[in-house]
């Protein structure tokens, strides 16, 4: 073997190794699965787990929102998919909605999840016919409205409103 080949191999090992280490330290994966997920995001091959997503939607329709969110989290651990994040935000809205008063903690979490959807895809529009609000903008407005205390909150007719 000629010396230049070994020198090139050494430089390649150093470059690839250091890149990998910088990547790991900057992304802070918590386990080996996360290392694989974050690597797939970095190289552009990341996809959601469709089966878990379907499970999440099924639980969402049964109003089992915590189970649904757990399934959505397993489906999209890197929070990179607008559709999954939209369902997570929507689940916070539905769980936190109350005829008399809303759960502010859940609405705040829902708002954060909606911001994530807008960041991922500002023009996202859900194709789910069962959802009343189809865009993150509508959902965000509803959540923000729910967090505010206004004169209309004391309107007795408010008790007749329905969850969206």
């Amino acid at each position, binding site marked *: *073997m*000629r*010396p*230049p080949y*070994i*020198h*090139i*191999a*050494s*430089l390649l*090992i*150093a*470059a690839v*190794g*250091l890149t*990998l*280490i910088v990547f*790991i*330290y900057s992304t*802070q*994966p*918590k*386990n080996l699965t996360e290392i694989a997920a974050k690597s797939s995001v970095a190289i552009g091959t990341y996809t959601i787990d469709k089966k878990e997503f379907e499970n999440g939607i099924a639980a969402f329709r049964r109003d089992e929102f915590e189970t649904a969110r757990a399934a959505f989290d397993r489906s999209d651990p890197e929070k990179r998919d607008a559709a999954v994040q939209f369902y997570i935000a929507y689940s916070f809205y539905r769980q936190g909605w109350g005829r008399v008063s809303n759960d502010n903690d859940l609405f705040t979490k829902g708002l954060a999840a909606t911001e994530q959807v807008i960041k991922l895809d500002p023009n996202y529009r859900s194709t789910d016919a069962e959802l009343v609000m189809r865009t993150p903008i509508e959902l965000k407005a509803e959540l923000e409205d729910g967090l505010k205390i206004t004169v209309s909150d004391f309107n007795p007719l408010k008790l007749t409103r329905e969850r969206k």
Partner: protein
Amino acid sequence: MTEKEAERSTELAEGDSRRIEAVMLKERMSETELRYAIRVYLILPLIFLLVTLFGGMRFSATDHSFLFLPPPLMCLIFGAVTVFLIFRARLIEFDRWFNEASPILENAANAGVVFLLFAASVQVYNLLLPEQGLASWIVTALFIWTLWNDIFADFDQKKLLRSLAGLFAIAFVTKYLVLANLAVKNETSWLQRIIENPGKEAATWFLDLPVYSPATGYLQFFTILLFLFGLFLTPKAARKGDLSS
């Protein structure tokens, strides 16, 4: 062409091919040179990369998940001083690693190995220094004191290796045996911890010690051993021929 001319031409052609073969053989490495080059250019980078990766790695005490702590600025300074000491003690001879007479590619590969040695040194200090609190300040001050003295000490390769091994051993024992045992794991309530073990609770609070899973200590022990093994394998000269001369 006469018969004599044809013979002469064949002789010349044979002579040329022998010369070309000799040049090719000269360019190729012997078995010993190849093994030496593999040690310097492949095994050492891999060892130092592993040390760089594991040096900042910890395991969470609660769920054993990975934590990757980047090195503080102080570790970069300690790493630079360590590389300076390595050159000064002639564990690596500068002229035999970086030479104008050598090809650029060879010098670049040598620089890569030395840079990885620096990165590994930085991470070794990262794993040895307590992450925060009073203990971090005390151990950092002791490291500064020791390394500052080392800069002016008369070293050879063996003395340097012994000195670094001793320094790392005492720092490891301090952090992963003494301080780690003083820190309380946060599994029980604050009141319960105060009642059951007030001394430990007070030490944790006073020294502001982070708590990690015991697996961290095992990983860091082998990381230090790997670094010292890497230093042991590092030759004075990057080329086998330079070493024998």
